[in-house]
Every structure is written in structure tokens, then in C-alpha cells.
């Protein structure tokens, strides 16, 4: 099954890439990004989203602790298979405990991008690393290389390989666990998840982030998300920490000793 996904992945990506490219052109995107000393577009810095995707990537009404929000899913709705719609509903009902974020686990890709915490991109010619403040999540994106056939254990952040498509960084990721969700409302995927992200600078302090999600076990067809990333403007902007599980373990110990 997985081999089949990998074989079809590149063909699907091509089609989806051209769709994404058109969206950019339609947005009148003509910005020429600064370059690193070795000539690649410079995506470095500290970035963060400003949206409600962490609660729900689809359009949603407000509720206690959740602001109403316009979704980031292109076309508005995730094309679930029938059984998966039911599963998503069950996830939603159990979200306060079943969401991996509720137990401080890593949240996977692309969810880590639209968590309400900053992340930092560091570039070298052969490797781009993204450091995330949320539980010191880390992605090492290797350029001009291919996915390994197998991995020793399911990496919670997947296996990521990068390429430049003009001025856009394209990151292809597979080898995911099925333990992560897309948001706090129970949108989910299987181990067959294949994620293609496109990072495109659209201005000095903005980047377009487009994602194609493919998972034939859960969805009827590939689908996309799109959102801007914003550069943190503070003079002293830096990643600090949100060591969620360290705080959680500390609470457990305090309660035990009371």
C-alpha cells in the first residue's frame, strides 16, 4: 500500500503543484526574495501564523475558549471517505483527552506549523532545519535526496526531503505515525499520509505556506491548505520554550506528593 502511495505521489504532486502555482500567480505574487550567500531564496528567521487553524482547520463557529474562524482548507471542506467522517466525529466528541496535544505529544506535520508558537528556519545548502518552540520539535529537511525505504521507528514529524521549485521551497514528507491529528477538533490521517509543503516568500516579512495532503486510506482525493506565515517583528524575537510534557510530569508528581 505504502509503495503504491509513493509511486503515485510524484504524479499527484505535479498536478497539485501546478494548482498551487496558479493560486500564487492569481495573487499577483511578484516579490523577489533576498538570497543566501550560496544563491537560494533566504527563508531564515522566526515565523508564526495568525489564524485559528490550531482549533479547527475548517470553517467553524465559536465556543467557550475557541474563537470562530475561517478555515485554511482550500475549497472549504476536507474530502473524507464515509467511514472517516464518522471517525472524525468521534474524535471531536473525545477531543479533550484524545487529542495528542492534550497529552503534550508532538503534533506532526503540517500541524506544527500552525500551532500558536513561533518556529525558526535555519538554512544551509544541503539541509534546512526548522526548530519549533512547542516541545522542542525539530525537522531536518534534507535537500536533493530521497526518502529512505524504511525507518527504524515511526518519526512523529515524518521524514522530510526538500527541493527548490524556482523561488519556492518544496518539502515532501512521508513515514508518519497515525497518532497525530491535524487540529484540536479531530481531523485526522493514517500512516499513509503524504504531505507536500510549499514555502514561498511574498514580501520582506511574509511567506505563503501551501500544503497538499494525500492519504488514500482516509480521503477520497488529495486536498490543500493555504495560509500566510508572518515574521516575528520584535527586536528581541527568539525561540524560548514550551516544554509541555515537562510541565505535565511536574504536575503529576506534585499531585502524587500532596
Amino acid at each position: 500500500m505504502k509503495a503504491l502511495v509513493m509511486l503515485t505521489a510524484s504524479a499527484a504532486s505535479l498536478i497539485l503543484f501546478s494548482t498551487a502555482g496558479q493560486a500564487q500567480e492569481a495573487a499577483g505574487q511578484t516579490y523577489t526574495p533576498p538570497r543566501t550567500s550560496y544563491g537560494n531564496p533566504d527563508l531564515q528567521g522566526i515565523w508564526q501564523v495568525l489564524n485559528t487553524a490550531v482549533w479547527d482547520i475548517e470553517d467553524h463557529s465559536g465556543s467557550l475558549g475557541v474563537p470562530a474562524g475561517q478555515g485554511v482548507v482550500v475549497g472549504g471542506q476536507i474530502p473524507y471517505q464515509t467511514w472517516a467522517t464518522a471517525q472524525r466525529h468521534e474524535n471531536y466528541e473525545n477531543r479533550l483527552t484524545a487529542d495528542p496535544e492534550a497529552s503534550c505529544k508532538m503534533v506532526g506535520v503540517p500541524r506544527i506549523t500552525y500551532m500558536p508558537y513561533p518556529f525558526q528556519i535555519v538554512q544551509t545548502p544541503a539541509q534546512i532545519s526548522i526548530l519549533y518552540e512547542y516541545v522542542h520539535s525539530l525537522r531536518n529537511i534534507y535537500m536533493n535526496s530521497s526518502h529512505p525505504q524504511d525507518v527504524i521507528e515511526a518519526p512523529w514529524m515524518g521524514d522530510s526531503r526538500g527541493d527548490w521549485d524556482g523561488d519556492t521551497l518544496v518539502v515532501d514528507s512521508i513515514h508518519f505515525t497515525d497518532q497525530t491529528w491535524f487540529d484540536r477538533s479531530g481531523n485526522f490521517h493514517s500512516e499513509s499520509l503524504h504531505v507536500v509543503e510549499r514555502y514561498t516568500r511574498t514580501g520582506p516579512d511574509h511567506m505563503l505556506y501551501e500544503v497538499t495532503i494525500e492519504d488514500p486510506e482516509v480521503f477520497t482525493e488529495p486536498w490543500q491548505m493555504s495560509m500566510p506565515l508572518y515574521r516575528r517583528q520584535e527586536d528581541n524575537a527568539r525561540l524560548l520554550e514550551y516544554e509541555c510534557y515537562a510541565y505535565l510530569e511536574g504536575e503529576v508528581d506534585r499531585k502524587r506528593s500532596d
Partner: protein
Amino acid sequence: MSNQFVASTIALAAVVAVASLMPPPAIAQPEGWVTESVCPDNTATVFHRCALEAAQAFDPPRVPDGGPDLGGIWRLRAPGMYEDLEAHPRTEDDQGGPGGIVDPPDGKVPMHAWADARRRENADSYIHHNAACLLSGVPETMYMGGTFQFLQTPEQLLMLSEDAHAYRSIPLDGRSHISENIRLWNGDSTGHWEGNTLVIETTNQNGKPWLDQRARFYTEEAYVVERLTLIDANTLHYEATIDDPNVYTQPFTIVLAYRRSTVEGFEIMAMACYENNEALMDLYRGVGYGTYPGISAAEAREALEAGR
């Protein structure tokens, strides 16, 4: 009754065995790790003496617009530092090692008496933070795992560890430290070049990680200075001086050697830890262990005064 006793004894023995065997993840030694070095690096004191001299004669490669290029895959040479900073034998619990302390010259950790007594008590009550997948702090993060990658740009040095996907980002742009009201598991580090040596100053630690499995601790006032110097193309000399006067009688210095991997295309793993650790934590808690809550500098000062 006796069955229950036997069962809990076995459970405890299993936990003790697992606790001591946990870190670091077993790392196979692939072919292509550099074996030649200008200095012998299996004993900290010998390596240190040789390295200081060798560094004088070595002109390191540099990054464009920046200092010496420390980038690459690095493997720690000395085993067992995370078990005990001091020399210790191989036992059922420890892989053993020569220790890493070069100052004071006797190789012993210069702990105040109260602190030495306290850490022995702590070792019986708390698991080493690594067993709970918590960050290791500075400097322990530099000898907790075995394999590291450094990524260097003119503005910063990233230090990536395989141990619980821990990373450090060291800014090289001359910025100042954050407010002392912000305490972080790995502290706040800033770096600058002194000749060919990268000097990293770390403050703002939360004092919850230990320096080793012997429960050697420090407070949030700890001030750590690390010095990293290439002594040949493939050998990195590392020293860290820890200053925390309420816990230690004097600043002390440890030295480590790292060797470069020359394996083409080697990729370090950012391994998940906490996500797969629930059963083990339940086991530890089941036999009474907790995570170390730390001790504040104010409490340490009080304990020091009381002991005088």
C-alpha cells in the same frame, strides 16, 4: 504475601536495571568515523593538555563572513560522562569511564558538604531527567547523547542532538541575555569568537536537570561557559566551566573530545522519546520515583549557611 514481596522486588530490580541502562540510545559505530586525531582523546586530562597546544598550530576552515567552521556530524569520544562526571568503573549499572574533570586537578566534583549529602538523597528519590525525556540542560546535553550535528551560519550555531531531538540555537550576533525572570530547561545561550574559539555563555537555566546520574545538581544561578575549538580538521576540543557557588566550592571544568564523521550523507535521527515513554514512567512511579523538582538558589544559600 511472600509472592507479593517477590513480585515487587523483581519489579524494583527491573526498574533499577532499566533506569541505569536507559541512556543513551544504543548507537552503532558505522564505518567511516574518523579514527586519527592529532591528540589522544581517551582521557580528558591528557587530551586537554595536548589539545591546547595543538589548537595554537591549527588554522581552521571558516564559514563565509564568519568564524571557524564547526559544522558537521560529531561523535562524543568519552563514554559514561552522563553516569558520573568523575572516573568510575564498569559495573552492571554503568559502562564506566575515565571522568571528564580537568580542574580541579584531582578530578573530583568540588561540591559543598551539604550539597553532596543532598544529591545522595535525591538519587534515591528521583529518576534522572533523561529517563523522563526531559531536556538535559547545559552542559549535560553535550554528553547525554553520542552523536551530534552542528549547523553553522554567520548568525548562529545550531547544535542538534539525537537524544530526545534536543536542539540548541546559539546566536552569534552579540545579543544580550533575556530577563532573569525567564527560566528555561536549556537556559539562554549566547556565543562569540575569541580567536578561533567559540565561547558560549549560558544563563537562565531552571536548575532541574542534573549534571550526571549521580544526581549532581545546580541552581538557576548557575553560570556556564563553554569553549569549542577545532584542534585539527576532524577533532573538536570542548570545555565547560560550571560556576554555582552555593552548590560548589569553586568553579570546575570538564573537557570532552568530539570526532567528525566522514560518512557521506550521514543523517542524524531526531528521535521521539516522550511519545513512547508512558509505560516506563508508570513503572518508575509505581515504585516511588518522581521527577526532580529542583532547588532554588535561595534554598541552596540557606542550606549552605546552615552547614557553616
